[in-house]
């Protein structure tokens, strides 16, 4: 699939933009803070209805639009060409009263819900800070999985939404239980929502990670010159094979995680429920739910070494590249089309060898958009096959 045309109104520093995009490779050149990353962000936003920076949805509305209108708004629109023909995606974002943010989604000019965006536009985004996915906090890896799955699996979006709402309510109840006696049935009703949704989330994540691991293995072997065997391991915070009261250090034993145990829904639900009951007292004291997929993790293991804890920066960078390339292949499987590949300043940090490997892997992509501060860093042959765009403070020149 490709985006043929992108229209932006009040998005980031673009007051107004009408931009035709070509299939194949596009290089967007510009100094820092001129708006080249915002172009990639806009395409990502049209695919997911979110900014790739999880906290930044509110800030996508152009600064300055705030002074011009009572309720400032931004509009993003993409003309797509998919295998099933041309389509139009449109997202309106408006700041509403009470500092809320209203999003309006239109697909082929008809108003739709957020969940209807799933599968409409598939993108894989490479960002300079991606290495944090390996070395940073578990929350980053969970949001990565959430974002990737949300592009292709509508049932996942539903389960995650139900889980998060039940979790918020249950945590509020735990805090109330510090101050008033709580009827056990009050916990039971939220647990009844939390458990099946949580198991659904964990199972779908686990299935996705298994597939990503399978696809990442050969990619990583090539990127590491045949030296490294990469494994991606979904690390649940509870496991049906392990009694809930076991300390966490035991639960993360790699053998246990590789065991086929705990993969069926009934066992997982029972284990989850048992953990909720067993840890109730501790949960009330801490005012928060301690078991569930909101505490799961994803580990990158190469040659039996956990790269998050012990990998070199170079190893971590390569692993994340392998993951993203696997994601592109996985998305192709799920959606049945080539995803659009967006590379923000990523090529510059790679040595020529890895750069060639990366470009080689995405050569099937129907549309790849690369940003750079200096087009001179690429060799002439690479630049020659690309469409060049130049961005200077919110203005794009062909």
């Amino acid at each position, binding site marked *: 699939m490709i985006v043929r045309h992108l229209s932006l109104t009040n998005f980031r520093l673009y007051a107004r933009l009408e931009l035709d995009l070509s299939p194949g490779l596009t290089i967007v050149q510009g100094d820092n803070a001129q708006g080249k990353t915002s172009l990639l962000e806009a395409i990502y936003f049209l695919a997911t209805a979110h900014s790739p920076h999880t906290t930044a949805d509110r800030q996508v509305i152009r600064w300055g639009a705030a002074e011009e209108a009572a309720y400032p708004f931004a509009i993003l629109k993409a003309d797509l060409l998919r295998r099933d023909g041309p389509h139009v995606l449109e997202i309106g974002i408006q700041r509403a009263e*009470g500092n809320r943010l209203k999003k309006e989604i239109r697909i082929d000019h008809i108003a739709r819900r957020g969940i209807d965006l799933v599968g409409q536009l598939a993108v894989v985004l490479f960002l300079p800070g991606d290495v944090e996915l390996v070395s940073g906090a578990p929350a980053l890896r969970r949001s990565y999985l959430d974002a990737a799955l949300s592009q292709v699996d509508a049932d996942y979006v539903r389960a995650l939404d139900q889980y998060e709402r039940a979790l918020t309510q249950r945590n*509020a109840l735990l805090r109330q239980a510090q101050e008033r006696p*709580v009827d056990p049935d009050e916990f039971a*009703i*939220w647990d009844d929502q939390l458990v099946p949704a949580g198991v659904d989330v964990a199972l779908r994540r686990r299935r996705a990670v298994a597939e990503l691991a399978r696809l990442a293995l050969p990619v990583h072997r090539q990127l590491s010159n045949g030296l490294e065997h990469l494994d991606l391991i979904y690390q649940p915070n509870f496991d049906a094979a392990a009694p809930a009261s076991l300390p966490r250090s035991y639960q993360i034993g790699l053998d246990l995680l590789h065991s086929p145990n705990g993969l069926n829904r009934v066992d997982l639900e029972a284990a989850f429920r048992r953990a909720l009951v067993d840890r109730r007292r501790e949960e009330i004291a801490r005012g928060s739910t301690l078991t569930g997929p909101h505490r799961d993790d994803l580990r990158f293991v190469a040659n039996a070494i956990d790269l998050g804890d012990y990998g070199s920066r170079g190893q971590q960078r390569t692993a994340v590249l392998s993951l993203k390339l696997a994601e592109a292949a996985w998305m192709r499987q799920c959606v049945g089309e080539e995803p659009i590949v967006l590379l923000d300043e990523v090529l510059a940090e790679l040595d020529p060898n890895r750069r060639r490997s990366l470009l080689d892997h995405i050569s099937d992509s129907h549309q790849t958009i690369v940003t750079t501060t200096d087009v001179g860093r690429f060799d002439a042959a690479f630049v020659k096959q690309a469409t060049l765009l130049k961005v200077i403070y919110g203005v794009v020149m062909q």
Partner: protein
Amino acid sequence: MTTPNRTLPPSVVRLIDAFAQLPGIGPKSASRLTYYLLRAPSEVSLTLADALRDLKTLTRLCSVCLNITERDPCEICSDPARDHSLICVVEEPLDVVAIERSRSFTGVYHVLHGVISPMNGVGPDDLRLRELLARIDKANATRQPVREVILATNPTLEGENTASFIQRKLAGAGVRVTRLARGLPVGGDLEYADEITLSRALEGRQDM
């Protein structure tokens, strides 16, 4: 946000602030409403003022079903033609209006005045739930026991969970407990469902 503006008379500021406390009305709408009233003939303001005063002085909650009424028990609870052994439990008085409009229900109501929602600080004791259980107990001690309780809370997460909490509390009370049939838009409000959808949901109700 509200205007600590020295050029505005205190009575104007007071009304703007009063409007701004209402749900769904921000400072801008509050000002617009106030200026509208300033320009409009004084009957408009006086009628509104009377209506506001009567709203609180003439109405109370029905001692049986807790719906809002001017006489106690309310019209529905004191109507002998209605089936008093069939109680439909709803979240808000507006839900009674919606179901009555569908003309498909001949029983009586019980208004909870909310749903269980810990994040909004609402627990079972903040609802009119104790009154429901007492009402059922009391009726079951007479010759006209409650046959069926229909849980007609909204199909939202909180509505569903409030229904299942009530169901847990009624287990063993010897009363049939049913839930509206699915078909109402999920996450939607009863209040906004059309009459046909509502009467279908009532007819197709299922045991919990």
